[in-house]
Structures are given as C-alpha cells and as structure tokens.
C-alpha cells in the first residue's frame, strides 16, 4: 500500500446530544482516490468535513478523537484552521462559484493568500484550468460571469478554483450528483488525472461511480465505519454482510 496521508483514530462526532460518527478509525493513502459510500444520513459527508475542520463553522458540534494529516494532529488547539483549509481543498455538491468573473473566481484563493502579481495569477488560471480540463471552454471568456457557465462547467471551475491554492488533498462532496451523465463522465475522468498529484477523498451516492474512480472504498452506515478496503474487494468480495447487501443494491 502507498504511503499514508490522513489518519483518524477513534473519532466521535456529536451534533448536540446526537452522535453522528462513532469510533471511526481509518488510514487514507497518499495520491490515491478514497471513496466514502453509504445511505443518506450515514455520516459520510460529516466525516469528510471533519478532515478540513469545516464542521467548526456549525454550532453545537463536538469532536473527540484524533485526526492527523502527515503526522500532525489537525485538532490541536494551536492549529491555524485558515492555513489548514488552504492546504486541503474542497469541492461541494452544488457548484458554489462566486458571482464574479471566471478569472476572479480562480484567483480569489491565491489573492487572499497574498499573490498579487498579474503574471503569476495568469499562469495560475491557465494551469488550473488545463488541469481541470476546462481551459478550452473558458479561455476566450475569462471575463464573463462564472454563473453563465453550464452546470458541469461550473463544477469543473470549482475544481480549478480549489486547485489554485495548491492543496495536497482535495475533498469532494458528491461533486457529480447534480450533473448529467456526460458532465459526470468528464468529472470522473478529471478525478482520474488528478490523483497523480493529489490525495482525493470523494463522497458519493453513486456506487458505480465509487467503483469506477476510487482505489479505496469505505462503507458507512448509521455513523459507523462498517468496512474499509480496496475498492475491488469491497465491490467483488466484501467481508461484511451489510456491505454486500448495500453494494448489490439490496438495501440503501
């Protein structure tokens, strides 16, 4: 197995009195795609947001246990959360581009991190758009409103925007769930290209998608991690009955 990038140990998360994650322990490998699957409300999206401390923004959330990235406990009280999120990019379920131009959307991240040189910013825009396979579609319309793009293009632009701050890890929360099959295929192809350089964690409802894009798959159910293994094993020969029932479509 590849080097380990993220480790969680005995992670518990509570929304008020309700426990949403129970004793999650797993290792996420570097420069691989790890998929989280499971029925709605199983905690997979919550767990994803644990990894860049996005849950901090929600009131009444309490977290116990350890989450370490490259050996650093990111829940240490002295950790700079802003810096952490800069290094862990996130793509959301619904495209959430800013109501600004395409160009402004991509340079937002670099700019707030102090990059103001026009030439560097232009290079970043071109590099990230090429990486996210959208350059040919937007290169002539960088100054148009980003919201004028189609849904699939918007989602790829969100990925480009996440890449612009040069993270090592990219978290994707059902990035293709609102897209048509062709746009979905493009996003999946993109994920495949990106894993050469980035550690990708993806939450998905779509089991075929998990099977297609990921190297490792974790199956969550009711806040518990039921099974975590190589994707091929999860989908062909799972060791738990619950996993088998879910991936074969018998429940969920």
């Amino acid at each position, binding site marked *: 197995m590849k080097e380990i990038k993220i480790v969680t140990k005995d992670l518990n998360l509570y929304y008020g009195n309700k426990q949403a994650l129970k004793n999650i322990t797993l290792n996420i490998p570097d420069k691989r795609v790890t998929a989280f699957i499971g029925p709605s409300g199983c905690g997979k999206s919550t767990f994803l947001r644990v990894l*860049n401390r*996005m849950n901090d*923004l929600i*009131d009444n959330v309490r977290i116990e246990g350890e989450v370490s990235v490259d050996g650093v406990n990111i829940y240490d009280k002295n950790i700079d959360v*802003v*810096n*952490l*999120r*800069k*290094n862990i*990019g*996130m793509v*959301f379920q*619904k495209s*959430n*581009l*800013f*109501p*600004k131009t395409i160009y402004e959307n991509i340079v*937002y*991240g670099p700019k*707030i*991190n102090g990059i103001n040189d026009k030439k560097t910013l232009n290079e970043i825009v071109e590099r990230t758009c090429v990486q996210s396979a959208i350059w040919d579609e937007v290169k002539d319309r960088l100054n148009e409103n980003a919201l004028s793009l189609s849904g699939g293009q918007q989602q790829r632009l*969100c990925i480009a*925007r*996440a890449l*612009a*701050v040069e993270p090592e890890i990219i978290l994707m929360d059902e990035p293709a769930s609102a897209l048509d099959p062709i746009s979905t295929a493009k996003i999946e192809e993109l994920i495949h290209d990106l894993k050469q350089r980035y550690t990708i964690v993806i939450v998905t409802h779509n089991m075929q998608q998990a099977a297609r894009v990921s190297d490792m798959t974790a199956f969550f159910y009711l806040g518990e991690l039921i099974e975590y293994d190589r994707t091929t094993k999860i989908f062909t020969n799972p060791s738990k009955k619950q996993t088998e029932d879910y991936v074969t479509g018998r429940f969920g």
Partner: protein
Amino acid sequence: MNEKEQEFYSKSEDSKYGKKIHKFTRTKESLIKLFFTLNGVAALIFIILIFIFLFKEGFRALEHIGLLDFLYSYRTAADGTTKTIFEWYPTSDDPRFSLVPLILGTLMTAIPATIISTIFGVAAGIYLSEVANPKWKEFLKPLIELFAGIPTVVIGFIMLVIGASFFNDLLHPDNRLNAFVASIGLSFVIIPVIASLTEDALHSIPNDLRMASYGLGATKWQTISKVILPAAFSGVSASIILGFGRAIGETMIVLMAAGNAANITSNIFLSVRTMTATIAAEMGEVSQGSDHYYSLFFIGIVLFTITFILNLIAEIIINRMRKKNTF
C-alpha cells in the same frame, strides 16, 4: 344516446356529486369579496386624492410666483447695483421665495446623517448577519428595528435639550442648534433602517458562498469583505438610498434641532432650515390662498418628487436582487 349512456345519466338523481349551491352562500361569498375590494381600492383612492390635492395647490404657485423665482430673484440695492439673491422670505413686504437655502438645508442635514448612518448601520448589519450568534441576533434585530419606531418628536426633543448642549460644550459650534446636531438626531432613525435592510441583504446570500470562501482558506473578514459584501452590494446600496430618503423626509427632528435659520452655508455648525421643517412651521400660520400658501405646497411637490425617485430606485434595485438570488 345508447343504452349505456342512458344508464350513466339516469344515475344523476341520487348522485352525491349533484348537490346544488345555496343561493344565500353565493350572495355571502360575493359580499365578502366586495367588502375587501372596496377597502383595498379606498386606500388607493385616498392616496391618489392626496397627490391630486398636493399637485393642484402646488402648481398654482407657479401661476403666482413663477418657476425661476423659486430659484433666485433680482433686487436693486439702494446704491443702484443689481444683486442676485437666494432667500426664503415669504412673509416680507417684498417676499422672496428661493428654495435654494431650504434644499441646501435639507442636504446639509440628510447627507451627514446618511454618512454617519451608513458607517454604523452597515457595520451593525454585518454584525447581525455574519458575526452575532443566532440567539443574540434574534434578540438584537427586533430591538434595533424598535429604535426606528421611537416617535421622532421624542428624538427631536432629546437632541434639542440634551444633545445640543452636549455638542455645544464639546465642539463650540457657531450656533447651538445646527445641521450637525440635527444629523446626529436623524441618525438615530436611519441607522436602524440601514442596519435592518443590510442584514436582510447579507442574509439572503447563500451559505454555499461562505463555505466556498472558507474552504479556500479565507478568514472571516476576507469572506465578508471580498465575497459577501460584493455579492450583496445592490441590497446594501438600496438600504442606504432608502435611509437617505427617510432623512430627507424626516420633519420633527430637523424642526427641533436644526435651528431653522435659512442659511446658505457649507458650515455644518450653522443653523439651517429644511424643506420639511419649513412646511411644518409655516403651514399653521399662513393665510389660505396666498402666494406663501401655494409655495408651501410647491415645496411639498419637490419633496415628494425627490423621495419618490429615491424609493423607486431602491425598489428597483431590491427587486433585481431578489430575482438574482433565486436560483
């Protein structure tokens, strides 16, 4: 009609779908409808009648005085030189009707008040929408809105008695009652307006945008200043325009605190006289049908036009914003 159809229609006698509507019910329904229609229309008619009255009386001023006389007039001094004068002296033997000092007086109070209120109101709106925790907000927002409901005569009185003395000792202005004191008083009314509408505008920005910004490693302040405020720009500017309109139309505070001398000045520490205060102070004592009487209505038209245009602009901006934010 074949046999089957005949059988189908013969059932109608004892069908439960065939109950006829009672005549009384039908009359009652239409009476209720008529009652509410009349009420709705009556409100509209009263407003239209007020407009007609205002414009009818106001435009008669033009027959007697003339449009240019509302701006300036020429007077020959004792030594034979001719001077252009901008004075509001409607009750003199030689009456002068220039609205310039009154319009300037209105701007001298409304503009500083809007500037002060923009700073505090927008800051308060940002605090309510982005910083305060939800429980605090639920308590604070109605409290701030309650402020807008304080009778303006109370604020005017407080400024007249306490505010004016306080600023007199602090800043030693040229006049004890002046444009500055009045604009502070106006701010008490306008800050809640701007704060509440700014909060609405910021709150209508989808949470996804905040998440996107935080996800890219932005701080709270960067998110507010670079994403939320620009996205809510139109709503925030509409709130400022509405606040400005309110400042122009406000009467009691300026009547009591601005000093009411029709000065033409850029000195904020001198007394000024606003359009609203002029109408309020003089309408009670003017002889009906005189030039002075009609000219007060003409001031009303000017005021109405300004506030109508400001409200219209704000309304258009807010409507456009609503359309834009519904995905």
